[in-house]
């Protein structure tokens, strides 16, 4: 079976580097599936889970916003900050979401609303990743 070279990097570390038969991710315009031989594509990466399938083996990673570059033989995820989905703490994510929501509703504080909205989207994506992982188990 043909494979595609997958690398997921964040500004502070290398998250994953290896082969995959199929990769799923959330692009800025919706969910995309990447198979070997994909046409060159450049798109934004929305915060959310990235799934790498290699045969029967499947790994899930959490990526916050960034970019995806696809070449026929390789796919690169440039995440601003990515982390292993397994190591994520759901409680922490929910707390972050609550904080973001509170910030958004708190009219008193001088807050950057776009930043709060981004935080909220990221926290929601984290929870989605964790819940997906749970279901798979």
């Amino acid at each position, binding site marked *: 079976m043909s494979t595609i070279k997958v690398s997921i990097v964040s500004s502070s*570390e290398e998250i994953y580097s290896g082969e995959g038969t199929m990769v799923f991710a959330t*692009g800025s315009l919706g969910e995309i599936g990447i198979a070997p031989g994909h046409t060159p594509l*450049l*798109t934004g990466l929305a915060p959310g889970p990235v799934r790498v399938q290699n045969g029967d083996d499947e790994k899930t990673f959490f990526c916050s916003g960034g*970019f995806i*570059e696809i070449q026929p033989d390789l796919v690169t995820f440039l995440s601003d900050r990515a982390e292993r989905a397994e190591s994520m703490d759901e409680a922490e994510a929910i707390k972050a979401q609550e904080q973001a929501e509170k910030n958004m509703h708190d009219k008193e504080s001088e807050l950057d609303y776009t930043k709060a909205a981004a935080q909220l989207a990221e926290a929601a994506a984290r929870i989605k990743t964790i819940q997906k992982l749970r279901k798979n188990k």
Partner: protein
Amino acid sequence: MANTKEVRKQIASIKSTQKITSAMEMVAASKIKKTQNEMQLGRPYSEKIKEVISHIANSSSEYSHPFYEHRETKKACFLVVSSDKGLCGGLNINLFKQVISKSAELKAQGIESNFALIGLKAASFFKSVGGDVVANVQKLGDKPDPDALIGLTKTVLDLHRNGEVDQVYLCGNGFVNTMTQEPKVEQLIPLPAEKTDELTATHWDYIYEPEAQELLEGLMTRYIESLIYHAVIENSACEQAAKMLAMKNATENAGDLIKELELLYNNVRQAAITQELSEIVGGAAAV
């Protein structure tokens, strides 16, 4: 001749200084490992984004980014990365010298310069030298946060977008090894186009989702940010290495001084004893 008490005092004071410098040496030595480690961790991202950028440069894109444009240069911006703390030998001053000479060279060609500064040392240097400072960040600490650099990067890139600045140089120390650091002044914008890949052989382009301009704008900004962040991390590794070396030299020099002073102390003491003895002998003979 100096008296024994004075010399003893001096020795004690140098000894306590030596203790401080040797402690600082050890602190720097342990921090080097951390900063080098961070450099290593950040490397995959810089390499990957560089790869992507070079792919883009080699594609037959319908949209050419302004960062690749060579336009007539009237003003250049120097982005200077320095340390926040001193006591690291000639690390900062060597870099500043190179920046100043490059800026003078440009001035000879009729190109004015302004400066965007990272670190306390650069801020105080360019304050005393005088220079048009457009942005300044300081006190990044031992673990620089990429978020802290966004503001400065944006200021510089906006200047470029508005046409107020035509060239941007990134200046910082390059880490060769723990003994050697090299001041570097590199051109950041316009980006040197590397069209050497086998990818150029065929005519191809990406599918862009959503818009090419929007995507490339974001990606280019991210690329510049990552280069600057990497320069900051590298500079902080250099700072620790230079500090370790400077403190090691200081500790050794203090040791030499102590040895000399101890010799002097013994001489003075011996002279005092001899004098006392001869006085006693002389006194006894007189009786």
